[in-house]
């Protein structure tokens, strides 16, 4: 579904990704783990075309999107939950969700909205509250809900567990599991390696702009190098 072929990305003159190849198949959960500064977010942003890859190709659903505009990529069936949630804090929960379905018809919006409320009953309770006044976990739910509003085929999550309580993290990961059951492909980027690999069908380990390891989630969890570096021995 999503293929990255030998992607190089630069910030100015500095190369952040040195030829990364990643593949996410339809219906999978694929986790990308790595330390701070490994290039995880850069990789995701390259998929979104902001910044664009300097060489290599990004293919989504068989179409080359390497040189597409961000706004066009985000309308073609990918949705991203950006790092740090980034909900529109002055807008209400409902308005945030409506922003997610900006390019859909009204009936589609109300359908997806009902679906999101089913997944996150908490959001229904807070429907008319300003998003900025909610807790971190609720905002993360809202960010995921907002991404789902565009009825994506694939959802990209950038550090959904960032700054959340362990109990809330568990909830979020349960939801991610549910998304797979609904047929949405998930590309998950996490520092919380244990939970991310546990849930994932396959996993990639990114280190200083290169893919170091690539295996199924279970194998990576059992891999002594991964255990040493990312799972605290």
């Amino acid at each position, binding site marked *: 579904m999503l293929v990255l072929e030998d992607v190089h990305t630069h910030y100015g003159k500095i190369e952040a990704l040195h030829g990364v190849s990643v593949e996410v198949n339809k219906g999978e959960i694929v986790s990308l783990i790595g330390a701070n500064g490994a290039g995880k977010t850069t990789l995701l942003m390259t998929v979104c075309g902001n910044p664009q890859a300097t060489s290599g190709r990004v293919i989504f659903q068989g179409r080359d999107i390497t040189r597409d505009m961000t706004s066009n990529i985000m309308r073609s069936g990918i949705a991203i939950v950006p790092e740090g949630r980034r909900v*529109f804090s002055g807008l209400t929960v409902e*308005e945030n969700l409506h922003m997610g379905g900006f390019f859909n018809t009204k009936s589609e919006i109300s359908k997806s909205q009902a679906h999101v409320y089913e997944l996150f009953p908490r959001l229904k309770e807070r429907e008319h509250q300003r998003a900025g006044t909610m807790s971190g976990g609720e905002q993360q739910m809202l960010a995921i809900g907002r991404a789902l509003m565009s009825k994506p085929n694939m959802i990209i999550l950038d550090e959904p567990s960032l700054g959340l309580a362990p109990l809330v993290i568990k909830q979020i990961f349960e939801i991610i599991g549910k998304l797979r059951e609904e047929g949405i492909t998930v590309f998950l980027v996490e520092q919380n390696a244990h939970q991310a690999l546990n849930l994932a069908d396959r996993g990639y380990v990114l280190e200083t702009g290169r893919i170091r390891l690539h295996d199924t989630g279970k194998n990576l969890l059992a891999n002594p190098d991964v255990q040493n570096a990312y799972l605290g021995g």
Partner: protein
Amino acid sequence: MAAHNLKHALFCAIVTLVISYPILGFNLESQGTSVILEGAKTSTVIGVLLAAVIVFLFQLFRDNVMGSLRQLPAVNPLANRKPMEQSRRLKLESALLTLMVIGALIWPFIASRGAVDLATLVLIYIMLALGLNVVVGLAGLLDLGYVAFYAVGAYTFALLSQYYGVSFWFALPIGALLAALFGLVLGFPVLRLRGDYLAIVTLGFGEIIRILLNNMTSLTGGPNGIGGIPDPTLFGMEFGRRVKEEGNTSFHETFGIAYSSEHKVIFLYLIALVLAVITAIAIRRLMRMPVGRAWEALREDEIAAKSLGLSRTAVKLSAFTIGAFFAGFAGTVFASKQGFISPESFVFLESAIILAIVVLGGMGSQMGVILAAIAVTILPELAREFSEYRMLIFGAAMVLMMVWRPQGLMPMRRIHIELKPQE
């Protein structure tokens, strides 16, 4: 503690002396052709010294004074008021709006000519502020050169009428569209800019337009301006005593009433009123439409807005263009009202005042912006007696506003459903 207070108080007293003595103490007197610096009168010197002593004593015993002041009930009666319930607020707002429109409609028939003229100016500022509200309040783009679009509208009408004899009603849409085009053109270079940088570039743009108008003497008449801009006509009826253009009739002859110069003033006022109402309704509709939400989303978080597939280019340009469009509207009316325009009407201070209206009214709130436009336009007129202290009073009022109500007169509220606690 005491030593620290003493040092601080001494410092404050010296600052008071240093600042106030040159300002109040020296006078420039003209004697014949030369200007002579005169020293202060004894009473002024005593006054300045007294002020320094008061500042010194206040700073010395500041903690005690402020402590006992805090015991007093709050000065601001609105401080502890509970927010109104939404249903009541909506009712109150619509009642207020109806009252305002009715009041505005009968105003010209009860008020003096000068008051009607002033009201026309208020309406022009309302249009401008509502337009800028889209750019600053909703889209969050700080535009300090907004007056440029106002100038484009005004000069479009003035030039078209001077060179081609175009009438007000033709020039109105052309002026607005041309201003919108300028908004679009300015939008492109500033797409990537935000905050301070955006403010500087738009400020520059406003100055460029003004200086161009000033220096293109052959076309615009430069600092001499353009005069003889025609008044609007009502279905071919002119409001002057004698008909200027072939084929037109005059208003007072058609209706068989005595000529009065007030007719024209009232007619202009009514045009401005209709246009202001159109502006308010159009922008209100836009705010409720997806494009309005897109503006707000972009203001709240640009990255998140992009992640949802919104195009930054389209959203920003639409805000600039629509804001400029209504400034063009206002400019055309202004040119027609004044009958004469020059670059002096479009200085930076105008931009600043329009921005002040938006901030004072409450960013994004239409009702607040309308009230602020009325206040900001009328207050300086009322304070005319204070002449040179007018801007000082204006500034003080602004500071007080920002201290007591930083969110503006009537901050923007969202329509929402209120949950009632279960019985």
